[in-house]
């Protein structure tokens, strides 16, 4: 009898506990606080060759921060494949990190959710002021006319990486500055039995980065001035077609690249199978794959004609990582201090050197460490000829819809189907219809 009563009591207790947990989950709509001033959770994006590398780079800096402020930072490096989903989940549940890295192209989309702390003048003051940051990097921190949703942390730009040996063998004396030159060089390279240019045809984000630049070079935009999708503009169609034609018509991108989505084109380049690669801050990645720094050269991404600049001479997106504070943080002051620490001149030098990126902080950028030929090209591009991807709330949907359309067009080209202005337009029209009406 006693054991039965015990069991009954146990059952009731457990039921109550379950009911309590079920009710306790509720959404936390309130803002942040400073309830736990001694700890912070930080989600870092995967910047190095692996997650282990990132931990090795970041941990000593976090220890330094703890020594300075007494705040312990719990680090988690989140792989790119999971990062956006994790952020969305954190936003929905209100249970997230205090500080996090975001891809800078997501800024406006995440800003629209209201989950991130807006960086108004007062908050910027706490980390030394907005003027400390480079303008191009600030241009990719949220929608225009709103307080930025994040602060630039690492900046990157696309550049043309070329294999010096293959160029020498093919008798090419300097890297191509225009697309026509690239295609002409491609013929010489193919004659030597190497493939010309790598691409990640099945990687939706990579596709977007490239067609965005091509659109700029054609004087077009994917969105109208008031933020409405405008994918079927004839100039946009021309731009997308020009990119896909690098495989379909000009045959400089091998058809096999149409199914690449796991950075296989970087491996092809590192192994010396392929002469050129359009990539952002590839140095660390190439090194980890065993390619020595002397083996390749780095040049600005080609333009239609002339030299890189603004407008139609754009030759890169503003790529980079931003740092944001989760509005629900229980240590807002500590989080702000941590952002200040990470964007300080000293840390900027350490971190950007480790990741072969460019500091978005003006004073840090002037350091001699960022004057190597590799970084100089990236710095120059960011300063003069890079444009920010559209800062609209529907950016994330845009990447998916148009990026997938380009993927399908590459699949057509690889499968031997004709890629015509009509087929490109049809694909883009379909992408536009998938965009939210608002």
């Amino acid at each position, binding site marked *: *009898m006693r054991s*039965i009563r015990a069991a009954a009591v146990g059952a009731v207790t457990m039921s109550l506990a379950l009911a309590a947990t*079920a009710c306790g989950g509720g959404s936390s*709509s309130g803002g942040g606080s400073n309830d736990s001033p001694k700890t912070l959770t930080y989600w870092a994006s995967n910047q190095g060759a692996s997650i282990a590398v990132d931990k090795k780079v970041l941990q000593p800096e976090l220890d330094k921060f703890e020594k300075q402020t007494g705040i312990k930072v719990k680090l988690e490096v989140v792989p790119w494949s999971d990062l956006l989903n994790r952020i969305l989940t954190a*936003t929905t549940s209100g249970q997230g990190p205090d500080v996090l890295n975001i891809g800078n192209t997501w800024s406006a989309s995440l800003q*629209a959710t209201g989950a991130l702390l807006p960086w108004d003048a007062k908050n910027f003051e706490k980390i030394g002021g907005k003027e400390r940051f480079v303008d191009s990097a600030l241009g990719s921190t949220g929608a225009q006319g709103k307080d930025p949703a994040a602060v630039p942390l690492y900046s990157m730009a696309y550049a043309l990486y070329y294999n010096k040996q293959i160029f020498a063998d093919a008798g090419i004396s300097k890297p191509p500055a225009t697309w026509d030159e690239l295609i002409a060089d491609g013929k010489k390279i193919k004659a030597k039995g190497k493939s010309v240019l790598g691409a990640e045809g*099945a990687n939706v984000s990579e596709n977007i980065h490239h067609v965005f630049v091509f659109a700029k070079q054609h004087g077009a935009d994917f969105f109208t001035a008031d933020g409405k999708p405008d994918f079927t503009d004839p100039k946009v169609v021309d731009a997308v077609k020009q990119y896909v034609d690098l495989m379909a018509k000009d045959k400089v991108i091998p058809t096999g690249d149409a199914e690449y989505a796991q950075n296989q084109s970087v491996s092809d380049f590192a192994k010396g199978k392929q002469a050129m690669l359009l990539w952002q801050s590839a140095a660390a990645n190439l090194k980890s794959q065993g390619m020595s720094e002397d083996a390749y050269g780095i040049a600005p991404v080609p333009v239609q004609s002339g030299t890189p600049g603004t407008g139609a001479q754009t030759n890169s997106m503003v790529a980079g990582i931003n740092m944001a504070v989760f509005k629900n943080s229980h240590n807002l002051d500590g989080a702000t201090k941590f952002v200040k620490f990470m964007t300080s001149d000293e840390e900027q030098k350490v971190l950007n050197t480790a990741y072969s990126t460019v500091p978005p902080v003006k004073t840090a950028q002037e350091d001699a460490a960022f004057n190597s030929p590799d970084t100089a090209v990236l710095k120059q591009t960011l300063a003069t000829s890079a444009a920010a991807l559209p800062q609209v709330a529907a950016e994330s949907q845009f990447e998916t819809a148009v990026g997938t359309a380009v993927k*399908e067009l590459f699949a057509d080209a690889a499968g031997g189907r004709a890629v015509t202005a009509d087929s490109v337009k049809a694909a883009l029209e*379909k992408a536009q*219809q998938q965009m939210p009406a608002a």
Partner: protein
Amino acid sequence: MTTTALKEPVRDTSPGAAREPRRRTGRIRRVGLPYLLLLPALLLELLVHLVPMAIGIVMSFKELTQFYIRDWGSAPWSGFGNYKVSVDFDAPVGEALLHSFFVTVGFTLLSVALCWLIGTAAAVFMQDTFRGRGLLRALFLVPYALPVYAAVITWVFMFQHDNGLVNHVLHDQLHLTDKPSFWLIGDNSFYALLTVSVWKGWPFAFLIVMAGLQNIPRELYEAAALDGAGMWQQIRRITLPSLRPVNQVLVLVLFLWTFNDFNTPYVLFGKAAPEAADLISVHIYQASFVTWNFGTGSAMSVLLLLFLLVVTGLYLLFTSRGRRAADV
């Protein structure tokens, strides 16, 4: 418990005013206890299964986009708006969903049929004892035992255009194709998906049918053989009818698993599946997570749930009616 049961009849013999209610509480206690003990499990079931399902249904009536996910109580109600968008087959979203639905139906029918056929054939051939039977049986179960992700990633490598094993065999060695084919993009992706799905699914059919075959008495076959029935007739007249109840469950389970399969297409193709292999589970994932429109995604999920409920209901109705008729 036994002690109470013994004592109570003794007490009942002495009359008294307080007896009745006490006996009632006693009965409530006796009858209620099992329910009380079930309560935690029931609540857990609610928590893990039914509550999320109910929330999903509620979500499908809301306009739950990126602007509201932070505080989704504040998302406006959209009535049947999400459903209208999903089933408006003239508009792009509905059209894409319908396309994905047909692809999934075709894929599921083919995959289930092939899994069943291969699984049953293998099980029947494995009935007779021969050297190495145990080894073969174990080998056949390997695809089922492997972790899905590892297995499918291996297939991704094999299906690669430039250095994949499939193209190496089909093109380089057997010269069946003019040039290496693409398996992970374009129209061929459907066959790639089907291959992996069947490879992964048939061992389960094999396992279940094999277990079912153990229950068929050997005498039936012996008697049939005496009467002059060949192997094919034995399979048709004895094996298949005896396997009927097993097959009924097997086909249903395979159907539901295949129709809802998310891992295989996701690992094979990533977030954006090629049109020819755009299975509905990934399609819905894309409609909600990738485009941040959880309302529409939920509405599509509810529609899928309804469809599967109807199919399962009809299937059970017809097969059990058939069985009852056969039993008579």
